[in-house]
């Protein structure tokens, strides 16, 4: 593929992202799993417990970014398979990786906007200084990483969104529970090794460093781990969708 064609493919991926933004952000599963669920979880976690705001904010950030960015991706592929619009997209001159990238960009944008709102509320209402360069860069990488996870989850060739949402819950909740949101990594002891398998772990650790100036890993290690997971999940999403493409129709 020439450079010109590659640039065109990126432009077309943005067209797919724009379409996703117009269509999918008001769909029920996105609202429920992307906004309501993390809000309820956070309230349930925080109310009635004597936890400091410094401890709560990194968890809230991690939870918001994780659930919002990974909420849209799983909805798109089964929905479009059912509506036969995926077939329409595949028949146009955009490579499959361009379609997947478009979906990831849309999820990324959705998650990032919501998380930045949470961040702004934290700064303005609670007066907490959380914005550091590491956190900003980490939030961008993590948003891309969790969006790619959403696209990995949506790869089974079904036309039933509820099946993918069930799979999504099965994968996301264990990751969420082992990522140091409720219990800091330093206090996990034996279970700590398991937490290293979740990309969310590194983002929450990065956020703790920004707020509390203490973390298990250094910011550079967290950023590198997030970047590694992003590449791995993005490549996995594209290969799985490619492998399952014929079975969608």
């Amino acid at each position: 593929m020439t450079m010109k064609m590659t640039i065109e493919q990126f432009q077309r991926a943005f067209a797919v992202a724009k379409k996703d933004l117009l269509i999918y952000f008001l769909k029920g599963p996105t609202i429920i799993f992307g906004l309501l669920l993390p809000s309820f979880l956070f309230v349930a976690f925080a109310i009635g417990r004597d936890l400091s705001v410094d401890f709560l904010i990194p968890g809230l950030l991690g939870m918001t970014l994780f659930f919002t960015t990974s909420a849209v991706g799983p909805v798109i592929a089964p929905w479009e398979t059912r509506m036969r619009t995926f077939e329409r997209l595949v028949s146009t001159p955009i490579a499959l990786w361009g379609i997947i990238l478009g979906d990831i960009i849309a999820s990324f944008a959705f998650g990032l906007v919501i998380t930045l709102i949470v961040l702004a509320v934290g700064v303005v209402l609670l007066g907490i200084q959380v914005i550091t360069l590491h956190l900003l860069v980490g939030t961008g990488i993590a948003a891309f990483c969790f969006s790619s996870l959403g696209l990995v989850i949506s790869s089974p060739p079904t036309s039933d969104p509820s099946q993918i949402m069930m799979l999504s819950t099965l994968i996301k909740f264990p990751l969420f529970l082992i990522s140091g949101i409720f219990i800091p990594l330093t206090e996990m002891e034996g279970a700590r090794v398991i937490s290293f398998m979740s990309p969310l772990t590194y983002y929450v650790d990065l956020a703790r460093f920004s707020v509390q100036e203490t973390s298990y890993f250094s910011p550079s290690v967290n950023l590198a781990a997030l970047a590694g997971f992003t590449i791995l999940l993005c490549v996995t999403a594209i290969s799985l969708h490619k492998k399952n493409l014929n079975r969608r129709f």
Partner: protein
Amino acid sequence: MNMVDVFDLTKVFNSLKAVDSISFTIKKREIFGLLGPNGAGKTTTIRMLTGILTPTTGSAVIGGYDIQKNPLQAKQLMGIVPEMANAYIDLSPLQNLLLMGELYGIKDKREKKARELLLLFGLHEKAHHKVRTLSRGMHQRVIVAMALMNDASILFLDEPTSGLDVESTRLIRDIIRRSKDNGISVLLTTHNISEADQLCDRIAIMNYGRIVAIERPERLKRVVESSTSIEVAFSEKVEKEELLFEDVNKIEQKGDKFRLYTDRPENVIPAVVAYADATQNKVISLNTLGPDLEDVFLRLTAGESNGSRNGNDDENDH
């Protein structure tokens, strides 16, 4: 150069051979029809030609580009109307057309082209309504307009008029004819034999994944010349067996009409008139009918329908 060259294209789903080693070409400015019953493999063929499905074996070249090796270049030349309606129902017709424009890399004249198509298809007043609020006919018009957005060199139209109202059907047929005048090739699949007869330069008849004939419609009709028939209706009730005159090969009753199949209509017509006189009955209508494409279709597909096929036989049109 042909617009489409298909070589030994085969698609196997598990053990089922949906398309079995088909080959054909489509010339520039040609309307090529794919005719066949449900499950014949028409839609699978179109999906392979448009790069949606990967063939099990064989290849297809669209405008000089192999659909497997250079899919993006090949797809750039195509306009597609898939079998099932699939515009984005949460977007407006205008948004759907603009999206197609972006996906085909149309930059400067995207909106102008979209608005021209909306006007052509009588959709301009609904340009900003969501597609989900449009009628089926309007919805299908949006889909055909989407296929024309990129000034394609070849149109793949999978049952484009199926289930539509008369006005929409006529409009889409006019667009197909006009496309040919503008130098565009068309691959049309249809169940509607008269539509294929009216529109197509050549027709391939498919059955059980195989092409059983490719010819011009008039030549195909000659395949079954012996199916000339006389259609007659009487004023009074008549029993079918009474019309079994000499030279009548077969009789079919269709409502109050009888269709008498014969190789010698010049002998059967006087016999019908003589029968009416003798029984004091009146002939209300009498028509001599040549073989039509339906006869050809039934003749060519009948031999295969009792035969077996690899895998099970209850395949839907994939």
